[in-house]
């Protein structure tokens, strides 16, 4: 399995981070290895998602009952599902849908979060208190439950899912951005800009926002797997995407019947397609985090 390499690489870095047991060169080599493997996996995912659909057309309705539920073999590496469709191809298509929903939702959430957090941090005072109180209130509703609530009222379709994921995920970004802005506000260069006569808006857009963009970008990247996970959970519960636009969650949901009959492959592979991009993105984000904030350890950030 390709992903075990990532994890092993992950595992040694914290050991080296313990101050008095520095491993020197070992650390650097696992570090680059982790970076390369993660980057390769992300690139592979992106390529598969972008290139396979134009090259291999998949008719989502096409049924080949003679070839139903074949175990993995050379002609069908992942086997076939209960109506004889090739699972590898369906997984790639499902990954495409999940990834698309994840990216759009993560971007939306990051934009909302950055705007709200920056506004709260830049205005301060009662605006800040009110906004953060709202964030606290919203974050005390479990995400998936709020997502289910929104999807149940607005379904069906792709957009309710995107909206529900975006609306539940901007809170952490807003907190991070606000904290960052608050620490930037006391810097001398901001004081210099203010005494130079810069308006509040100019200070916020020109001097504060660029400072928080790396953090916001990192939060956005880390949010993609989370958003994908969220989407597949909703789809798995039958509340997400309609069955003809198969996402990974829909695939797992659809495989429940054949799982109970003993066929494990329609369940196993869509799940692996969720895990591998998640680990790869987490590996990349860990390296990025070390670069923008070297003092903080990159663990526990999946």
């Amino acid at each position, binding site marked *: 399995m390709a*992903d*075990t390499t990532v*994890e*092993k690489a*992950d*595992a*040694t870095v*914290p*050991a*080296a981070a*313990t*101050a*008095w*047991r520095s*491993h020197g060169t070992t650390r650097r080599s696992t570090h680059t290895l982790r970076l390369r493997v993660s980057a390769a996996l992300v690139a592979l995912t992106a390529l598969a998602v972008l290139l396979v659909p134009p090259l291999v057309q998949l008719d989502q309705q096409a049924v080949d009952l003679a070839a139903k539920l074949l175990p993995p073999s050379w002609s069908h590496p992942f086997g076939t599902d209960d109506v004889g469709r090739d699972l590898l191809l369906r997984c790639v298509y499902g990954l495409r849908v999940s990834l698309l929903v994840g990216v759009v939702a993560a971007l939306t959430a990051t934009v909302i979060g950055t705007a709200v957090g920056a506004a709260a941090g830049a205005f301060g005072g009662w605006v800040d208190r009110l906004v953060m109180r*709202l964030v*606290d*209130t919203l974050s*005390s*509703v*479990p*995400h*998936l*439950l*709020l997502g*289910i*609530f*929104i*999807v*149940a*009222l*607005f379904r069906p379709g792709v957009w309710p899912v995107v909206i529900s994921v975006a609306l539940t995920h901007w809170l952490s970004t807003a907190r991070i951005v606000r904290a960052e802005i608050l620490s930037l506000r006391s810097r001398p260069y901001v004081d210099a800009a203010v005494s130079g006569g810069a308006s509040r808006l100019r200070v916020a857009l020109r001097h504060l926002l660029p400072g928080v963009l790396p953090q916001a970008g990192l939060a956005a990247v880390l949010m993609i*797997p989370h958003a994908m*996970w969220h989407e*597949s*959970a909703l789809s*798995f*519960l*039958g*509340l997400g995407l309609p069955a003809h636009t198969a996402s990974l*969650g829909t695939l*797992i949901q659809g*495989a429940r019947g054949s*799982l*109970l009959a*003993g066929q*494990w492959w329609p*369940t*196993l592979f*869509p*799940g692996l397609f*969720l*895990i591998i991009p*998640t*680990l790869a993105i*987490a590996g990349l984000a860990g390296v990025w985090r070390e670069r923008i904030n070297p003092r903080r*350890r990159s*663990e*526990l950030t*999946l």
Partner: protein
Amino acid sequence: MRTLPWAAMGHLVARRALLAVPVLLAVTFGAFALAAASPFDPVKAYAGTAALGADQETLDRLRDNLGVDRPFAVRWWEWLTSAVTGDLGHSSVMRQPVAEAIGERLVWSTLLCTVAFAVAVLLGTLLGVLAARRPGSLLDRTVTSLAYSLEAAPVFWIALLAVWLFALNLGVLPAGGLTDTGSEHVTAGQVASHLILPAGVLAVSQLPWFTLYVRQGVGDALAEDPVRGARARGLAERTVLLGHALRSGLLPVLTLIGSRVPELITGALLVETVFSWPGIAAATVEAATAVDFPLLAALTTLATAAVLAGNLLADLLYGLVDPRVKLNEM
């Protein structure tokens, strides 16, 4: 053992209870506002398939009876005032009052979540300490890699694979439900055997987070002066590890336990669905599929209250365990 600071704890609980009121008000108000903004039609949801054959006059009368045309703020206020007296409305999908439906199912969800969380905490502490003892060792690498992969794996996927392995292939555990299909009474033994698989999967889904944090906390504590001092005094490795490193390493973890309640509820939602566990989480999914608004609103409120209670519990624990923290200042 010193006596517990009951007065300070009471104050904290009372203050949090007061703070929870506006949060719950805002959440329920938001739920009603969302419902008003959505294309969801309460009349059709109430009448169900009967709405298809009904004439316009009947529908209008129903609309009038349900008071759908009034502004949502009014309906929210009415719902709230009757909710205070214990009347949460009627659930159309469960065909019983919402309070009753929740009451019946709350026990099973609490049982599932408590067992799973206890297992996750105990096992997570054990694995975390073992992994932190020798950073970079084979055990540490195995535990950390497993934790990362498990954290990335969707819990419903793990649950399905567990069903396949334990219920279908090995045939040792039942695949779902609360009791065997033939039995009419709920016996402790049957519940226990049906509980193992869902609770195990839920615990496994909570485990990675806990293991990684304990490992981090204990690993950090092992590098600090008190531990070096304890080693220099010649204390046994066991005392150093459990008495010095684990005690201070667990502190940051304790504050975060409360923040896991939402994740626990999320996990329970998915696990209960897979295993047909008759808890409130599975009821949430049913309510959402049938757009049963009264039940959905009550469950959302309940989950929010659970999260707030979890936060309170974590703060209480932290204040009790860490002598530097004053409960009155939280």
